[in-house]
C-alpha cells in the first residue's frame, strides 16, 4: 500500500475516533472487566489492556488503531496473563461470515502472483498461470448473510429458546454479522457445552442411525430449512438426488427414515457433507467455542473497509444489505482513486460497473476497501 494511502486511511480513523470514542464502550456490558486489545496498522496486536472509563480508551485511540477488540469473557483481572486472568463468564457469540457460508453471492477478482496481473480471468492473460481469487463483498453478499442470520435466529428462538430480546446483533463491518447473547444462564455454558451447540447448528458428527425420534432436533434442522435452501441453490448445483429428496420431504416420519437410510449407503459421507453445507448454519466454530476469544468492539471501524461495526435491528435487516452498508459508513464523503480492477458491484444501494485502470470517484468506504484488498491505490479527497 502506498504511504500516502496509509496516511489517508489513518486520518479517516483518527477523526472518527476523536468524535466517537465514547460510543465504543456503550454496547459492551461490564467493559471494565474485559480484556481490550488494539491492532496497529503494522498488524501488531497490543493485548491484555483494561479500560476503566471512556477517557482511558481515548488515549489508546489517539494514534488510531486498525482494529479495536475486547474479550468475550469477563475476568477478575483482565490485564493478567491468560492463565491468571480468572475467567468469570463468557458471552455466547455467533459469528456469521460470508467467507464460510455456502453458495453466497460474491464478486471475485483474480491476481496473478507471478506477474501481478489483476482482472476478471481465472487464468492470467500474460503468463497463463492460475491466478488467485480475491473475494469481494457487496450489498448482495450481505443480503445472503442476512438470510443465514435469519435461519440462525429462528433456531436460537425455536430450539434454544433464546429470544430476540436476549440478543444483540451487529454488522461486523464487512463480511457479516455478530450475534451476542450476554445474559445468564447462557454466559455460564463452558467450552464443552458450546461444542454441543456448535454441533447442533452445523450438524457436525451426526450419525443418523442414532436418531430415535422423528422429533429429534437434528430432524427439525433439516425439515425446517430444507425446502427454502433447495429453492435457493437447487438449480445451480449438482446436488445428489437423495439430498434433494431429503430436503423436499415434509413428513417428519418419512424424513427421519430417509435420514437413517443415509447411514447404510456407500456415499453416506458425501450426502452428509451436502446436508451440512445446505442446512447446517455456517457459524464460525472458533468464535462460539473459544472462551479466550476477542471480538471487534461495537462502533469501532473495520480495518479493511472503514465501515462501522454497527448495531442492527430486524427492520434494518429487512431493508437489506444496501441499507446495512449505507448505515455503517463513517462519512458520506467521496474519494478519487485509481482502480486497477473492479468488477460490477453494488455498494450501499448504488451500482458500479466493471472498471480497469481508471481514476474514478467512489464513496470513501468503497475506495478504502478496494485499496485495502489491493484493487486500487492513490486515494485523493474530493473537496467539492
Amino acid at each position, binding site marked *: 500500500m502506498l504511504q500516502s494511502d496509509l496516511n489517508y486511511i489513518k486520518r479517516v480513523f483518527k477523526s472518527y475516533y476523536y468524535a466517537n470514542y465514547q460510543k465504543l464502550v456503550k454496547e459492551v456490558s461490564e467493559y471494565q472487566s474485559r480484556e481490550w486489545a488494539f491492532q496497529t496498522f503494522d498488524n501488531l496486536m497490543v493485548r491484555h489492556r483494561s479500560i476503566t472509563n471512556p477517557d482511558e480508551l481515548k488515549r489508546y485511540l489517539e494514534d488510531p488503531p486498525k482494529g479495536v477488540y475486547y474479550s468475550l469473557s469477563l475476568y477478575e483481572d483482565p490485564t493478567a496473563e491468560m*492463565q*491468571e486472568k*480468572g475467567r468469570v463468564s463468557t458471552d455466547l457469540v455467533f459469528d456469521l461470515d460470508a467467507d464460510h457460508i455456502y453458495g453466497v453471492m460474491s464478486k471475485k477478482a483474480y491476481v496473478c502472483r507471478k506477474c501481478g496481473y489483476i482482472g476478471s480471468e481465472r487464468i492470467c492473460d500474460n503468463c497463463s498461470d492460475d491466478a488467485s481469487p480475491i473475494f469481494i463483498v457487496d450489498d448482495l453478499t450481505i443480503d445472503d448473510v442476512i438470510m443465514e442470520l435469519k435461519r440462525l435466529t429462528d433456531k436460537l*428462538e*425455536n*430450539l*434454544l*429458546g*433464546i429470544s430476540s430480546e436476549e440478543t444483540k446483533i451487529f454488522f461486523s463491518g464487512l463480511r457479516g454479522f455478530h450475534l451476542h447473547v450476554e445474559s445468564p*444462564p*447462557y454466559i*455460564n*455454558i*463452558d*467450552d*464443552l*457445552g458450546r461444542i*454441543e*451447540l456448535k*454441533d*447442533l447448528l452445523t*450438524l457436525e*458428527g*451426526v*450419525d443418523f442411525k*442414532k*436418531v*430415535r*425420534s422423528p*422429533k*429429534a*432436533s*437434528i430432524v*427439525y*434442522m433439516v425439515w425446517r430449512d430444507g425446502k427454502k435452501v433447495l429453492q435457493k441453490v437447487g438449480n445451480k448445483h449438482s446436488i445428489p438426488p437423495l439430498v434433494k429428496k431429503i430436503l423436499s420431504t415434509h413428513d417428519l416420519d418419512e424424513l427421519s427414515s430417509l435420514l437413517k437410510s443415509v447411514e447404510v449407503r456407500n456415499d453416506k459421507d458425501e450426502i452428509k457433507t451436502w446436508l451440512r453445507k445446505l442446512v447446517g448454519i455456517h457459524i464460525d466454530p472458533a468464535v462460539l467455542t473459544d472462551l479466550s476469544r476477542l471480538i471487534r468492539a461495537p462502533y469501532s471501524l473495520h480495518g479493511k473497509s472503514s465501515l462501522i461495526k454497527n448495531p442492527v435491528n430486524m427492520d434494518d435487516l429487512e431493508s437489506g444489505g444496501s441499507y446495512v452498508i449505507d448505515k455503517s459508513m463513517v462519512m458520506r464523503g467521496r474519494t478519487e482513486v485509481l482502480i486497477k480492477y473492479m468488477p460490477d458491484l453494488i455498494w450501499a444501494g448504488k451500482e458500479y460497473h466493471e472498471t480497469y485502470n481508471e481514476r474514478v470517484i467512489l464513496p470513501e468506504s468503497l475506495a478504502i476497501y478496494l485499496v485495502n484488498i489491493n484493487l486500487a491505490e492513490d486515494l485523493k479527497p474530493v473537496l467539492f
Partner: protein
Amino acid sequence: MNWDPIEEQFKWAGKYPYSVIGKKLFKELGISIDELLEDKSPILNVAYREIASLLDDDIIVPETNEYVSLVKFYISSMIVYALGNTFLINRFIEREASRAIDFLKRASNDEIKRLSSDLGIDIAVDNDQYLIHFTDFVELIKGLSHIHWKLYYFELEKGYVKLTKRNMLRLLKEAIKEEIENIIFNIEAIPDAIAELANKIRIDYKEKLFIPRKGQDKVGSKNPDEFPPCMLYLYNNIDKGLPHPGRFTIVAFLSNVGYSVEEILDLFRVTPDFNEKITRYQIEHILGLRGGKIKYSTPSCRKIKSFGFCFPDKICKQFRVRHPFQYLKGRRRATK
C-alpha cells in the same frame, strides 16, 4: 422453606443425604465424631461395613433407619476421603447415586422435581415427558461417554430438552454424583477418630485396597511434571514465597503424593526468610503431627480456585476435575 414434619424431613434425608434437607439436618444434629467413637456408636460399625462392602462383596450392610443412613453417609464420605483411593471414592459415589436412582424409579414426579431442584436443576413434567433446560443438559452429559448423548439426538423446543423418565434419571444420576463429589472433596479436615477407622480399613483390606487392579490408581506421583497446573504453579513458585493458602495447599498435596517432612522442608529452604524451626512446625502441623493432630487434606479445586491458584488445562476440563487427585488419574488415562 419446607415445613414438612421432622419425621418426613428425616425420611427424605435418609434417602437423599446430600440434599438440602440432608445437609441441614446433619449440620443441625451437631454430631461430634469423637463422641460417637467414645460411645462405640453402632453407626461407626455400620459405616465401616459400608466401606468394607465396597471392597468385599460378601459383606452385607444391615438395613438402617433414616437417622443412621444420614449420619452413615457423611462418616463414610470422610472415610473414603481419608483413604484417598480414587477407585474406592468412585465406587462409593456410584453406589450412593445408584441407590438414589432406585428410589427415584418408584418415586412420584413431585419427588423427582424436588430432588432436582435441590441439585440446582429445574425440571418440568408434561405428560410422560420430562423437560430440562438445554444449559443443564449440556452440563450433565459431559460425564456420559456414550455417543448417543448429543443434543441433536433429542427433541428440543424453546430451550427445553424433552426426555423419557429413564433418560431423565440417568442425567439426575450425574447430578447426584457431582453433588457427592463436591461434598467429599470439600472435606476440610479428617478427625482423628475417622482417620483411625480409615486406618483399620487400610489394614484389614490391605491387599484389596492396594493391589492395583484395572482402573485403580495410587494417589499420585512425586514427579512435578505430572502435577496438576495449580500444584505445578505453587511448586515452581515456592522460592518466591507463597501466601499462606498456597503454602498450606502445596504442603498438604506433597504429603499426599508421598513426600516426607524432610523432603518438603528441603523444598522450602529456598524461600525468602527461611526459618527451619518455624517451617518444620508449620509442615508438621498441616500433616497432623502437631497441635490438634488433625491431618489436613489437599483442598478441592473449588477451594483452590477461591485462593486464586486455579489454571485449568485440557485434562482438568476433559475429566471434569474437581480435586487435584482426580487430575493425576485423568492424566494417566489421557496418556495411555
